[in-house]
């Protein structure tokens, strides 16, 4: 039986802050944003299937995405290639997703990450239940957790 539940918003925030303070510590903390941003160009998503089902997404601006890649590789933003950005964002959502999964009932399985320049829309009946609007270096970073509204399985496609 699939459990339809969501992580506490505070727990999700703690996971994201821990990832940032460990792997993205460039002197700029990740802070609550003043409000939702439309300057969002990259999406990294991962799905959890099993006892708990969800899609977890990290959505960022162009500058934030490049900054994540460069900081994780310890190189200048200008030296960060498109492949580096894709790799870094995939690893970022893998870590966030893995830590969120560990907070929820199991057993469940984490998928491989999907990274797209644009939106990644859940194709099945998934409902956003948690959303964090954050800012890093003044750039938007959004974390969203979708869960099935009727216990349906979750998949995602890049659009």
């Amino acid at each position, binding site marked *: 039986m699939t459990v339809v539940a969501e992580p506490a918003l505070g727990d999700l925030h703690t996971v994201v802050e*821990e*990832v940032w303070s*460990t*792997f993205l510590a460039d002197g700029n903390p990740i802070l609550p944003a003043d409000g939702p941003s439309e300057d969002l160009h990259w999406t990294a998503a991962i799905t959890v299937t099993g006892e708990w089902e969800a899609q977890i997404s990290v959505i960022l601006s162009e500058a934030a995405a490049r900054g994540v*890649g460069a900081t*994780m*590789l*310890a190189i200048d933003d200008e030296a960060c290639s498109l492949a*580096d950005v894709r*790799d*870094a964002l*995939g*690893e970022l959502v*893998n*870590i966030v*997703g*893995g*830590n969120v*999964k*560990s907070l929820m009932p*199991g*057993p469940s399985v*984490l998928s*491989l990450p999907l990274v797209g320049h644009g939106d990644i829309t859940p194709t099945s009946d998934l409902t956003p239940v948690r959303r964090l609007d954050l800012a890093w270096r003044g750039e938007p970073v959004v974390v969203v957790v979708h869960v099935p509204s009727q216990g349906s399985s979750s998949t995602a496609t890049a659009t």
Partner: protein
Amino acid sequence: MKILVVDDSRVMRQIVIRTLRQSGHAGHDIVEAENGRMAFDMITAEAPDLVLSDWNMPEMTGIDLLGALRGAGIGVPFGFVTSEGSPAMREQAEAAGASFLVAKPFTAETFDEVLTPLLGAAR
């Protein structure tokens, strides 16, 4: 010593190698593989002294790699560096013969704690 770092993310392999250095365990011969299948071939060919492996990878997962190694009678010390650190996964890792499981995100201090018994004190 020779250490094999296994992760499908080049970025994460770089972070693991950097953290090895920051934890005081620099100076080892580092080799890399991007999935379990490639790692198995490298282990049989190069006989590393330690394997640091991700769990969730394409081609062959880390837990399948560990099972294949032990099934082939290869007892190389093996530690997971993975995004999931639930008690159930730690139990599964230990039962399969892993020396430790480090959950991402990790610090240099965490690396030192698990590596010192295997590699000796940090330099």
